[in-house]
């Protein structure tokens, strides 16, 4: 997607978010959960980058930092705003965040709890317009009608309440709301994981269509690798607060270079009984971000671990152009991906 003259819309450098663990009556700080620990990546205009990983890997925390729903502990989040200048979202004072928020919007996971049941579709979709004093009432009505058409809903539905709509339709409403202010970046946190399988495809197709039509940039947070494969240009795999592998989608799926990526791909149940896999079943559990193991965080579960993995923490290195891996053995291992 992003060849040659790509514009960097988002550039995240050394992002960290630590949460304190408080103990006892005086709530003294007893430790830290390193939810996001030195994460760097960029997203070009018009592309989709997916953050994938299992629960607790820090993918949602990363997304929330980018939207400044929470303030990062350290690092830079450089965002190219519409009028040109690049701003650091991480350090911007709260008062200056508001105009930026028009340019970054969010699509939520649960279409049942993310829409206020007491407000009509018009109220919900026009809320960002009202909050930012955009347009007169009539202009807002027109804009909402246009947005509803855009996401495949009938404008006549404007006066109805969310309860009258199915999960897939509600997710369309959530997307319409996110698009109301013409944002350049959409952060979608598990946008289809609460939907029925037959409806997931509709929403994924809609996201692809809107991206082509409006030149949107997506940062997608997801755990379902099949979903990720359908919509992403590039994928970053996270494990215990760090990116362990990042490259373009095709390469990640067919030729992974991190043992954790290989295990993740292998663990996905394939919808074909003839492929009953010689699955790689990872032993043990995801490491505790408050008390991570020494060396590479993945080494206790890694079938390829050697001594160096127990002692030294690997860095994210570019082992091939555009293929970043954080593994001591990335250059020597040949790992199994999934075919077409």
């Amino acid at each position, binding site marked *: 997607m992003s060849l040659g003259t790509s514009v960097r819309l988002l550039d995240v450098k050394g992002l960290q978010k630590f949460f304190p663990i408080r103990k006892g009556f005086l709530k003294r700080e007893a430790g830290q959960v390193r939810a996001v620990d030195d994460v760097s990546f960029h997203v070009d205009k018009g592309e989709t980058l997916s953050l994938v990983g*299992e*629960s607790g890997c820090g993918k949602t925390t990363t997304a929330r930092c980018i939207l400044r729903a929470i303030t990062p502990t350290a690092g830079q989040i450089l965002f190219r705003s519409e009028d040109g200048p690049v701003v650091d979202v991480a350090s911007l004072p709260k008062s200056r965040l508001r105009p930026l928020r028009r340019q970054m919007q969010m699509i939520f996971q649960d279409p049942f709890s993310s829409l206020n049941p007491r407000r009509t579709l018009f109220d919900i979709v026009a809320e960002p317009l009202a909050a930012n004093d955009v347009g007169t009432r009539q202009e807002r009505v027109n804009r909402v009608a246009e947005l509803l058409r855009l996401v495949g809903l009938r404008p006549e539905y404007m006066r109805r309440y969310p309860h009258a709509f*199915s*999960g*897939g*339709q509600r997710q369309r409403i959530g997307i319409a709301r996110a698009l109301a202010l013409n944002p350049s970046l959409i952060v979608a946190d598990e946008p289809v994981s609460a939907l*029925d*399988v*037959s*409806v*997931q*495809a*509709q929403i*994924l*197709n809609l996201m*692809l269509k809107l991206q082509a039509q409006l030149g949107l940039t997506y940062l997608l947070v997801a*755990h*379902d*690798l*099949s*979903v990720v*494969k*359908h*919509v*992403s*240009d590039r994928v970053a795999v996270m494990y215990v607060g760090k990116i362990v592998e990042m490259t373009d*989608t*095709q390469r990640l*799926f067919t030729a992974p270079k991190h043992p954790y990526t290989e*295990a*993740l*791909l*292998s*663990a*996905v*149940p*394939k*919808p*074909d*009984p*003839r*492929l*009953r*896999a010689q*699955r790689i*079943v*990872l032993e043990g*559990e*995801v490491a505790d971000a408050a008390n991570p193991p020494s060396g590479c965080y993945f080494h206790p579960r890694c079938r390829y671990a050697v001594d160096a993995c127990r002692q030294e923490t690997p860095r994210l290195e570019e082992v091939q152009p555009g293929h970043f891996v954080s593994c001591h053995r990335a250059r020597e291992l040949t790992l199994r991906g*999934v*075919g*077409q």
Partner: protein
Amino acid sequence: MAENQTPILSVRDLKTYFFPDEGTVKAVDGASFDLYPRKTLGIVGESGCGKSVTARSILRIVERPGRIVGGAILLRRDSGNGRGTEVDLTQFDPESREMRQIRGGDIGLIFQEPMTSFSPVHTIGNQIVETIRLHQDVSEQQGRRKAIEMLHLVGVPKPERRIDEYAFQLSGGLRQRAMIAMALACGPRILIADEPTTALDVTTQAQILDLLRHLQEREGMTIILITHNLGVVAEMCDQVVVMYLGRVVEQGPVDAIFHAPKHPYTQALLRSIPSIHATVRTELPTIAGSIPHPYNRPTGCPFHPRCPDFMPGTCDRSEPGLHPAGENQDVSCFLYHPA
């Protein structure tokens, strides 16, 4: 595989309706299938298809205002002399002694969300021991030993310590293992697993599926696996039942369901799932519309408003029945059995 064996459980034309104030919801509306010993039967479908209510009907734990209004659930037990006895579970009172023996004794159940299935104020050990002592005449001590043994069997590390922990102290994967230990504590022949891995991460899911397969081999268990995840079905099941709006639309051996699906719903569902083998950034074929609201059940075949092969005048008028189509495969569709 099916002909020369007697099913261990047969569901015949099961109807479980709910009667809330607003009207009637036909959650399960005429489901029939057979469960063969030592096999895994998958019941697959999307929300509202009645797969969970079917499981709850078998165990007679359907909540008010729902009740079984028709059909039979035949459980065959080996009486030891080579001959089996057959009981119809729909004939028992849900609170009866027989049903209590069957729940946990003959049929174990694991739920989707292990956090809400365990009591938060009792240790997991206490709850497992309670289950054991409900069914077997053993002392507290023996019960505890059995519980530790079960936790060990399902791969909980340091079971003698974990047994005194509470559910919230365990990770999702360990909690689901403890849940399985509790369900299997009394050696049921049938295990009903209702979305056992839906709340888990993929690598944990792989561990739990592995465990279920391993336990099935070791204990000779029969499993009913209820899930919306077709990948899990493909990996685990021998037989598959596909449900849509309370009805079985297709059933057959797993390979036929995935490689020669007959019903337009099964075909569309298989096409529309995002696959890890697909080409990057491609549009997916979709099923038009969404699952109807239970109060607005379509007339005729429940799938006809979304069906690409809809035949006006037939599919919206009469309901198709489940009839054979192909080897060991049944389908409920007028394309194969003209009205």
